[in-house]
């Protein structure tokens, strides 16, 4: 049985490797490995050409992390710290609308969750320290907040609503890493089902009306806990008539 094919939104960035310096279509391997580890097959969707025709070939889609979304999408002025990527905004918003219309199983990670809120007609906080008075949702550059001995900076708990998709996947509580300075204010048509208990920052949004539509504010792909990726793959397999028991973990 074939692996469910999972599209992953990707970056167009200047990268340096082995003494080379090139503009590249790219994605951290953590995302690719996460999808492969739970039985999926990852392909990368580049942001250069906003079109949704690629949706028809996929069994599921992950909207990955990245820069801030242009606040013009929800009618707000740009905060001084907001760094937008207009090309990704345009292509990902179109792709997400098409994915939802096709009921393609969908997982949003960090920026991806924020794209969900914006597509759902909601709004974002543009700079969390202005709202909650601290910057503990943004781990220091290049650190792993979940590593043994790491400081609590960038690591926090999430409490999860009963009777939610997130609760069925993760239970009532999770400890997560955190790499963001923006967050969901109003989730729009989606429902918030997980929060950071210290400051009520929204950490999970979902919509049970779809076969699978879940967004998380943290980065599960950088951890050993890949349950939300596994849930996406299960939904993708179910939608496409594939047999989940055939997947190697």
């Amino acid at each position, binding site marked *: 049985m074939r692996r469910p094919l999972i599209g992953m939104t990707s970056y*167009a960035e200047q990268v340096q490797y082995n003494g080379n310096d090139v503009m590249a*279509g790219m994605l951290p391997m*953590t995302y690719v490995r996460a999808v492969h580890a739970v039985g999926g097959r990852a*392909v990368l969707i580049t942001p*250069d050409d906003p*079109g949704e025709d690629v949706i*028809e070939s996929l069994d599921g889609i992950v909207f990955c992390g990245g820069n801030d979304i242009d606040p013009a999408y929800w009618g707000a002025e740009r905060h001084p710290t907001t760094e937008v990527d207009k090309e990704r905004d345009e292509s990902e918003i179109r792709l997400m609308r098409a994915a939802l219309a096709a009921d393609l199983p969908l997982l949003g990670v960090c920026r991806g969750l924020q794209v969900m809120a914006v597509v759902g007609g909601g709004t974002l906080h543009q700079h969390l320290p202005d709202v909650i008075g601290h910057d503990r949702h943004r781990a220091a550059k*290049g650190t792993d907040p979940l590593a043994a001995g790491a400081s609590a900076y960038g690591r926090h708990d999430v409490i999860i609503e009963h009777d939610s998709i997130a609760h069925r996947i993760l239970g009532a509580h999770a400890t997560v890493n955190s790499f963001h300075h923006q967050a969901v204010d109003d989730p729009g048509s989606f429902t918030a089902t997980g929060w950071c208990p210290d400051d009520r920052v929204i950490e999970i949004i979902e919509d049970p009306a779809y076969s699978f539509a879940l967004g998380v504010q943290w980065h599960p792909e950088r951890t050993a806990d890949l349950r939300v990726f596994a849930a996406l793959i299960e939904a993708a397999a179910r939608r496409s008539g594939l047999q989940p028991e055939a997947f190697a973990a």
Partner: protein
Amino acid sequence: MRPIIGITTYVDQATWGVWRDLPTTFVPHDYVEAVTQAGGRPVLIPPHEDVDVLRVLDGLVLAGGPDVSPELYGAEPEPLTVTRPDRDRAEILLVRRALDMDVPVLGVCRGMQLLVVAAGGTLHQHLPDVLGHERHRPAPAVYGEHDASFVPGSRIAGLMGDDLAIRCFHHQGVADAGKLTVTGRAEDGLPEAVEDPGHKFVLGVQWHPEVVRDERLFGALVAAAAK
């Protein structure tokens, strides 16, 4: 719906934004733009043993990259050969399945060499040792520019027309093209283009057409993919 064109990718430690030496999968954006401008819908294909992805691909670009593992053509690695065995294992499976399924394939640089190896051919592991000059890779980040000559009547001759200028950046080259036909050569005789007339579209070029978004080649791939 536009034809979907898969592009193989690198995996390497990359530095970008705030990140240093993060394992990253990527491909120069030139390839993406070349496919898009030619009317295809690019998706990037990170290396993995799965080849079922070809089910949804109408065409495949084998991108450039590190040297092909000499074990794949029965040779010992030489001192200047730098390989990524994981990528080789995945891509050789992908190429073989693509050829079985007759998916249109354009191989660029390393991708051309991979087509040759899949066809039973062999490579020179360091051209300056064989040719006595460095004109195929003059200096870091500098393309060697020359005119190639193409076999009249071949696919590549028809696509290139009168403009024979090519941009090369490689230190390995084709020694024996195996079952493929050599249809283009540099002035020093090195194979620059290979084809397989037995397939719908199998073309390998040793140079880098993506750098100039060469619609002659990428357009031909997309057209073959659309059929």
